[in-house]
């Protein structure tokens, strides 16, 4: 009797497994298609961001694709050439090609943005997980430091750090790390605090799983969504801070074309040549706008709990 019962039970489980296998599983491509249907603006933004990254990488790897050498002062016969065929975005005070400089300028924005956010958000997430998981005095100490760090306006802290470290792309990344850490730690910590109390974490503790196993297998996968969203949102912020530092002339050395640096020159000459300020300004705004839109769309899709932050 019992055997039959078990047999039936097993059959039922088998049927369930079969049903599960029959359920259509979304491939990555299908997921992307679904995302573009529900969030068209997010999808367009993603395309803009990917194109910008592509432009930065390709123009760095193969400088020949640029219409002119961005540093060549003889790119155009005339200085302050207004936008026209052949000089699509005009020329600057030395006769350099504005379009080539704009594309070359994306390299610094993308390099500094991706690297600082990649390292900063990863490090912040790890510290956030540890802070919440360990708790007690460690958590208290880390949180008080985070509190104090948040009293500094980011650009002012960045200026201080760049003053101390000196102006270079890598030092701007260092400054950005210091700025990005507190916010990331704060958000991830608050998520881990609630995950820590959920049944599956308690169950893992009950069957004797070690701290590291719980953090890696049970907590980490559950903060991945927030991690991706935070990474996207802070990327826009990092690009603005880099552009601001270059704009103020203290970031990347002035001989390297950057959007912020181009804007500085453009500001001085705004009454003679409006295009020198407007195009780099639009480039920064569009990229940051796209990043914010994508961040919002990803947040709604991946992690509705973050809404309103």
């Amino acid at each position: 009797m019992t055997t039959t019962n078990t047999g039936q039970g097993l059959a039922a489980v088998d049927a369930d497994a079969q049903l599960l296998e029959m359920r259509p599983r979304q491939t990555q491509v299908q997921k992307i298609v679904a995302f573009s249907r529900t969030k068209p603006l997010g999808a367009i933004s993603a395309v803009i961001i990917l194109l910008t990254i592509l432009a930065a990488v390709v123009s760095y790897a193969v400088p020949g694709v640029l219409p002119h050498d961005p540093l060549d002062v003889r790119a155009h016969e005339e200085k302050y050439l207004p936008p026209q065929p052949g000089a699509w975005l005009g020329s600057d005070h030395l006769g350099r090609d504005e379009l080539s400089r704009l594309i070359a300028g994306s390299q610094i924005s993308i390099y500094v943005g991706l690297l600082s956010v990649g390292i900063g958000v990863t490090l912040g997430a790890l510290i956030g997980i540890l802070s919440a998981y360990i708790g007690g005095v460690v958590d208290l100490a880390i949180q008080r430091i985070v509190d104090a760090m948040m009293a500094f306006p980011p650009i002012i802290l960045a200026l201080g750090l760049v003053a101390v470290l000196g102006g270079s792309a890598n030092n701007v990344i260092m400054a950005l790390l210091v700025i990005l850490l507190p916010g990331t730690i704060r958000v991830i910590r608050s998520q881990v605090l609630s995950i820590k109390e959920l049944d599956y974490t308690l169950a893992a503790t009950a069957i004797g799983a070690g701290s590291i196993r719980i953090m890696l297998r049970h907590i980490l996968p559950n903060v991945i969504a927030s991690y991706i969203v935070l990474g996207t949102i802070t990327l826009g912020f990092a690009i603005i801070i880099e552009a601001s530092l270059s704009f103020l002339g203290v970031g990347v050395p002035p001989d390297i074309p950057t959007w912020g640096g181009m804007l500085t020159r453009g500001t001085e000459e705004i009454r003679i040549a409006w295009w020198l300020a407007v195009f780099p300004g639009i480039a920064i705004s569009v990229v940051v706008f796209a990043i914010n839109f994508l961040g919002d769309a990803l947040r709604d899709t991946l992690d509705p709990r973050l809404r309103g932050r």
Partner: protein
Amino acid sequence: MRQYALKRIALIIPTVLLVSIIVFTVMRLLPGDPALVILSEGDATFTQEELADLREQLGTNRPIVVQYGDWIYGLVQGDLGTSIWRSGQPVTKLVGERIWRTLELAVLAIIIAVAFAVPLGVISAIKPDSIIDYVSRVITLVGISIPTFFAGLLVVLILSRGFGWLPPLGYADLWDDPWKNLQQMFLPALALGFYDMAFIARVTRSSMMEIIREDYMRTARAKGLAERIVLVRHGLKNAVLPILTISGWQFGRLFGGTVIIESIFKVPGIGTLLIETVFQRDFPTIQAIIIVIAVSIVIINLLVDLLYGLLDPRIRYA
């Protein structure tokens, strides 16, 4: 209320102390030897004697704890050290001359932001999906995405090229020539407040939308009160709390924004002083400016908290 205020005031002491340690760590420990950094800039050559002199002048030849203690001791007494760049000038004087202009700029920006944002947000909330609502949502979305410096440039470009309007040249202080000063400060304040206007309008819209559905609004209307009174006395009065918190919070951000706006509009405030000293590697002054700004933000946050407690009894007794 008194207990709440005392508790909040007591809490800022450890925060300020930590802030000072962070500033000190960043400005004194990170560069290793500030004297060496200053002297070895570019291809400059220097003698051991010059190095020792500068260390003596900066006080970096003493133990680090003594340096920190000295700095804090001076700070409490209002002494921020001496500037290297403007040799011998007390930093307190340098900062003191300029901080008022920055404060004026920030206050003007907040006033402009709130003056535009609150009506925009309220109209948007009471007429959702109307043309005004759509326009205001587009403006606010653009406002929070445009970087401060580009907003500044656009303001200059539109007003100078489009309308031929230019502010008078040569900076005038508020108390010397109020009219000229306000004309000069209007553009930078507008550019600075643009982001905050967008942000506050969004907050006003969402908090008004929640309030409109509340029972007391229906009751007020049922009593036969005029729509204007219902909206202002019953609606806006309750929406003002989140608006106030956000405005106070934005004030801190404004200090960061002033650095950029002051340099575009050539306002001789604390932001331009910071940029100048960063170029000159005047570490004592940079350190002083950063601590002054950070402490100001901590104090503004405290004031907002206290005001919040004063306006909303639920906070005080929580």
